């Protein structure tokens, strides 16, 4: 087995190259694992938290927009004879600056339904007890028996921590829930005699039908599944993002693995040629290379999974941080390593590794031994890039075909995205070849031998750097595409906010469940000095049995305020009049998208008087929520719903009054206890953009990860290549090149490669941006937005590509300073 010994020794002689290969496989696997683990974990936590709150309830009895009468509970329990029914009174309260959810429950009936257990401590029983999860109590710095002051609107009251809240196995407690008894909640939240909803467990549809027939108009029985589906839709934007980035990680991981592994085979061609010449069979060599790849795969995947799990800790913290900020307060931090993740990682790692080794190994098996001696020369490089070109064309054509055939499928859009990225990446080698070819004549005219060599080397080494270049292109293009998309999105949001926010001061309650403004308060607002007119608004969630939660916005505004709506579709003629008193409603783009509505359609929605149809008059731009909002006037609202009051006001100031001064006056006279937010137009806009930025922070992190992987890829490929050229460098040194000259040549070469990758990334990035905006975002959420190309971002991407490649040349160039010329003259 002497030939194998020769190959093994070769590994020992080149430990750096071996290490780079392992690192390549490991990082490729790690990225996929990290993205997967963190998104699976986030989803799992989300579901567990939901399970704790929802328990085994199958349905919820609730009013269209708010509470129901206490009598309903009696009706459910006694008249309908439902055994498992749990009444809940809930509201958003604040404690120590934190917004918490106060749930008043009946412990006995609740325990049968929900996975929450109340474990009392040994403190004296007192009125107004609360139970909190241990994590929340810790966060608030409370021990059992301590007093906790809660605020609801202007009202405050001392509760005391009566014990801890625990979750049954398989459920997780949201970290923002306080549980108390029904009476305490009713008293504190000012809803004596009323409940928020009653959760029930029904055996079958007959039972549901029977219960439904007993409920008065305005009280609905909502299927929990319908609710859940809508709940999960909340995180859809987020998941779309994660899916896209997971896909990206996969592509880059594949490229990286392919690159490092195939490089490792190609690099040793002369040795294989020699072994073949000495009598090793082609099949023997092939088998050996596959076995070698299997070992690399095993070690690489193991390292990669470990590294990925480690990385996912950080990633998950950010992912759950974003979910917390946006939707839900997740308590747990358990990482879930799903078997599917492991399978995916193993398949990706092992598959790509063996595939990457198999292609050049097949070549080595078939080629006559002498052919292997010579390294890839100019001609074969050209051939290589032509083969890639064909693949590129096929992939891009397939992408366009998929898009064209499936007009509104999101899956198709993602498939197209994937194909487009792959196809475009395959263009990289051809572009490098062309660029190098095109620059050659100019380089020759410079009469600097180093320059010609650098330019030509780029081409000659294509078979070994092509894939890394492609990977770099993909990563940079993806970064660019996503950055441009986010930039476009942000600009659209900014423009929208500027048009939409027309008032000078915005007043709102901190929590969505806070009590409404009193009439006296509204009157004082109108009479505040400097206030010209005011608009009043309230967002409500209608629990619709068919659609799940639907957000509506009741808006009492002036024609000037109304002009802030940016109408996308619908007749603008007399729109305000139709809206104010004609029963017409306006819906946002995501709303129209979610319920498939166009101006002229009628939207059916549960109301306090039973289901009613609403005439959609127009679709308008709104980026505030991807779930969509339906806006209606007080006139329309009051025809179908019980009066609910307002919780937000916007003030239009008279000419010559200073925003800050009026705001100060408001805080002094009407907001002495500081229970309301008063924000200027500018601060509200900034706050909205801050939320926007926070939403996309995870995206930023994942993008960074993608770039790190691609940069690692290009650095390892280019570095390995340069390290291999010792003999050539020795000759040049002997001929009189200084280390600096050769170093310059190395850097020039890697830079040129990076430049090609960067140049290719620009059109791909733009195409991705357009695809994300015009197809993926539109199909996911119905948002239309402008496409804004920020030249700074474009320049940054180019700099990133060139910088990464340049970095790859630094170590080899630096190593040249101390280089044993004579030792390296004699060959590898």
């Amino acid at each position, binding site marked *: 087995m002497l030939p194998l010994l020769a190959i093994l020794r070769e590994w020992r002689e080149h430990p750096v190259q071996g290490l780079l290969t392992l690192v390549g496989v490991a990082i490729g696997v790690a990225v996929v694992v990290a993205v997967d683990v963190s998104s699976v974990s986030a989803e799992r936590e989300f579901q567990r938290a939901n399970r704790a709150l929802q328990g085994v309830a199958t349905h919820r009895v609730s009013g269209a927009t708010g509470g129901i009468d206490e009598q309903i509970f009696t009706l459910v329990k006694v008249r309908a004879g439902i055994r498992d029914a749990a009444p809940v009174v809930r509201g958003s309260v604040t404690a120590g600056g934190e917004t918490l959810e106060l749930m008043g429950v009946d412990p006995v009936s609740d325990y049968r339904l929900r996975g929450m257990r109340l474990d009392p401590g040994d403190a004296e029983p007192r009125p107004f007890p609360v139970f909190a999860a241990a994590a929340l109590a810790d966060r608030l710095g409370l021990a059992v028996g301590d007093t906790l002051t809660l605020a609801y609107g202007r009202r405050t009251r001392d509760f005391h921590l009566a014990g801890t809240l625990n979750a049954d196995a398989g459920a997780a407690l949201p970290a923002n829930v306080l549980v108390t008894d029904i009476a305490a909640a009713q008293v504190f939240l000012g809803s004596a005699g009323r409940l928020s909803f009653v959760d029930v467990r029904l055996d079958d549809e007959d039972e549901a039908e029977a219960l439904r027939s007993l409920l008065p108009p305005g009280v609905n029985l909502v299927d929990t599944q319908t609710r859940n589906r809508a709940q999960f839709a909340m995180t859809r934007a987020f998941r779309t993002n994660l899916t896209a980035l997971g896909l990206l990680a996969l592509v880059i991981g594949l490229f990286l693995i392919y690159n490092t592994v195939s490089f490792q085979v190609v690099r040793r061609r002369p040795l294989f040629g020699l072994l073949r010449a000495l009598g090793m069979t082609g099949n023997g060599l092939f088998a050996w290379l596959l076995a070698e790849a299997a070992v690399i795969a095993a070690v690489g995947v193991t390292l990669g999974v470990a590294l990925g799990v480690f990385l996912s800790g950080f990633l998950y913290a950010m992912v759950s941080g974003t979910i917390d900020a946006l939707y839900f307060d997740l308590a747990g931090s358990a990482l879930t390593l799903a078997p599917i993740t492991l399978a995916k990682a193993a398949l990706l790692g092992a598959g790509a590794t063996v595939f990457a080794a198999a292609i050049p190994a097949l070549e080595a098996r078939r080629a006559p031994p002498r052919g292997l001696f*010579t*390294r890839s*020369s*100019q001609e074969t490089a050209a051939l290589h890039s032509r083969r890639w070109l064909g693949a590129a064309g096929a992939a891009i054509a397939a992408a366009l075909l998929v898009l064209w055939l499936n007009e509104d499928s999101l899956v198709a859009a993602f498939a197209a995205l994937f194909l487009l990225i792959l196809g475009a990446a395959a263009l990289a080698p051809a572009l490098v070849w062309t660029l190098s070819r095109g620059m050659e004549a100019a380089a020759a005219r410079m*009469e*600097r*031998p180093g320059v*010609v*060599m650098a330019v*030509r*080397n780029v081409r*000659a080494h294509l078979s070994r750097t092509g894939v890394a270049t492609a990977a770099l292109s993909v990563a940079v293009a993806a970064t660019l595409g996503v950055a441009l998309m986010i930039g476009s999105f942000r600009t659209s949001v900014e423009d929208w906010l500027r048009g939409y926010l027309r008032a000078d001061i915005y007043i709102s309650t901190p929590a969505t469940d806070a009590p409404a403004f009193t009439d006296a308060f509204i009157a004082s607002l109108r009479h505040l000095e400097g206030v010209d007119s005011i608009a009043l608004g309230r967002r409500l969630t209608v629990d619709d049995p068919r659609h799940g939660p639907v957000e509506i916005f009741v808006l009492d505004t002036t024609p000037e305020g109304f002009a802030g709506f940016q109408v996308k579709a619908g007749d603008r003629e007399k729109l305000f009049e139709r809206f104010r008193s004609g029963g017409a409603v306006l819906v946002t783009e995501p709303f129209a998208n979610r319920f498939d509505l166009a101006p002229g359609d009628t939207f059916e929605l549960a109301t306090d008087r039973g289901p009613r149809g609403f005439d959609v008059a127009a679709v308008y731009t709104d980026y505030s929520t991807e779930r969509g909002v339906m806006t209606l006037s007080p006139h329309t609202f009051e025809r179908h719903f019980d009066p609910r009051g307002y919780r937000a006001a916007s003030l239009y100031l008279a000419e010559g009054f200073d925003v800050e001064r009026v705001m100060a006056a408001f805080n002094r006279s009407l907001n002495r206890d500081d229970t309301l937010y008063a924000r200027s137009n500018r601060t509200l806009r900034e706050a909205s953009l801050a939320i926007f930025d926070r939403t996309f922070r995870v995206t930023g992190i994942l993008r960074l990860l993608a770039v790190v992987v691609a940069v690692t890829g290009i650095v390892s490929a280019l570095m390995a290549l340069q390290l291999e050229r010792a*003999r*050539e460098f*020795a*000759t*040049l*040194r*002997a*001929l*009189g*090149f*200084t*280390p*600096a000259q050769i170093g310059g040549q190395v850097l020039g070469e890697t830079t040129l490669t990076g430049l090609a990758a960067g140049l290719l990334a620009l059109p791909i990035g733009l195409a991705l941006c357009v695809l994300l905006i015009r197809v993926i975002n539109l199909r996911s959420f119905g948002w239309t937005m402008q496409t804004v190309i920020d030249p700074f971002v474009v320049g940054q991407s180019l700099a990133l590509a060139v910088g990464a490649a340049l970095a790859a040349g630094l170590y080899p160039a630096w190593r040249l300073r101390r280089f*044993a*010329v*004579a030792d390296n*003259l*004699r*060959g590898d």
Partner: protein
Amino acid sequence: MPQADQIDPVVRLSDVSKAYRDATGLRRVLDGVDLDVRAGEFVAITGPSGSGKSTLLNIVAAIEAADAGSVRVGGVELSGVPEPASTRFRRRHVGIVFQFFNLVPTLTVRENLLLPLRLNGIADAKRADALLERLGLGDRGDSFPDVLSGGEQQRVGVARAMVHAPAIVLADEPSGNLDEAAGAPVLELLREAASRGSTVIMVTHSVAAADVAGRRLTLHHGRLD
């Protein structure tokens, strides 16, 4: 074609030694070598394989350092010359014919020849073509090294070492792969260089080649005599 900035191409080695450490221990390759070559002299060095001939040339070319002893080229003590001055010295004044050719794989034959010229800022490309013609390689100028035969590669290596008219030519078996017909012009070139005043040190195994030189030395047991 003597150059204005030509040095006095004297090579003087005294008591030079060099040893390598490998798996079997320390190998003394050169052990007190003395060598004096006058300007314009053509010296042939022979010796058994592995006796250190290539090592000796490397030391004169300053691409390898001696362990002990003095190496003076053109009156300058090599060990005292720092980088990059020593590289510049080699680039300008030394031409090396490598035993294993060492052509730059991504440059064509002509470009390999132009390399020393360009490095020295010499624009004259005609010299390269004339030299190729003389060595019977007139039609290979645009080929890449990997398609040349061993003998062809060797002649390109010789041409590349001579093209910038260095004051010192160090040739390691310049005709080792060549038949008599192809070898003759190579030896002729070296002799011409010596007659123009360059110092030529040639390592060879061939008696016929050694006869062309003015002086013949043998490296044996680490010593020259």
